[in-house]
């Protein structure tokens, strides 16, 4: 990867982190509010993000658009027949999301905002990821 490529991803990531904070998606309070269905805030954000995503992905697919390097854009499909992994894995993720009030992106954005304690949940999330890798063959998918 060339330096200019790194710079592009760094800038997009910076924009993403900035919006996560400005939209308060990183806030434990907003997550508690969301799971209590007490405000439109989080639903509006996720809903509009998905609508913009759907429209743009459809355009990219229908026009067979290529990426900046000229390669065709392909999106690998996920196997929907593995219902167990999505429901059980998803529910475990959801338990953690509501408990910690942050999913992976916000964990890192919060760290950047000066909340040094986020090092602990990040390390714990790495441990969780590693544990899944070890147990993977024994888990139903």
């Amino acid at each position: 990867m060339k330096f200019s490529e790194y710079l592009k991803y760094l800038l997009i990531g910076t924009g993403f982190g900035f919006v996560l904070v400005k939209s308060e998606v990183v806030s434990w309070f907003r997550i508690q509010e969301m799971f209590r269905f007490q405000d439109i805030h989080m639903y509006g954000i996720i809903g509009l993000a998905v609508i913009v995503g759907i429209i743009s992905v459809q355009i990219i697919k229908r026009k067979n658009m290529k990426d900046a390097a000229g390669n065709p854009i392909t999106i690998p499909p996920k196997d929907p027949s593995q219902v167990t992994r999505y429901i059980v894995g998803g529910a475990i993720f959801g338990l953690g999301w509501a408990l910690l009030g942050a999913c992976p992106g916000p964990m890192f954005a919060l760290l950047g905002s000066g909340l040094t304690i986020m090092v602990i949940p990040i390390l714990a999330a790495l441990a969780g990821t590693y544990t899944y890798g070890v147990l993977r063959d024994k888990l139903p998918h």
Partner: protein
Amino acid sequence: MLDFLYQPWPWYIAGPIIGLTVPILLLLGGKMFGVSANLRHACAACNFGNVEFFNYDWKTAGKWNFTFLIGTVLGGFLGGYIFANPEPIALAASTIADLQALGIQDFNGLVPDDLFAWEMLGTGVGLTVLVLGGFMVGFGARYAGGCTSGHAISGLSDLQLASLIAVIGFFIGGLIMTFFIYPIILG
């Protein structure tokens, strides 16, 4: 203009910008937006014990995403430190009342000091929220094959049924935690 950088952004501004991350990454390098993949790549970079799930060329798969993640930290610094909103979050009054009933007292920042502080690590509540919470996010994201960005944003953007099922799973877990388990933890 500077006011706009300090103030919180309404959902109808922030939502579309977050959604645009998907086509920007696709058009730029054919990359699929997903933050939790970085946690897997980090495990692959170390891979103590030679676990098969982490045996792959993480550099090819993950360099761009690590760079994106460093940017996310930087964006958090800009948005939450340099241009930090000095006001408390304008939460729904009902949420504030519910959380106060659970014993949360600090509503000033992005997260409550009652839970997110180094000294909380010495308490059962702090350990549960910070360590168990983080662990379940990491474990669950990989088990489900993605997190909020990979499934709820990217996957739904591509109309993937698997991602819809995963998002339903996120909410099953989140609602159980919010209504049944959190009141016990904070009780």
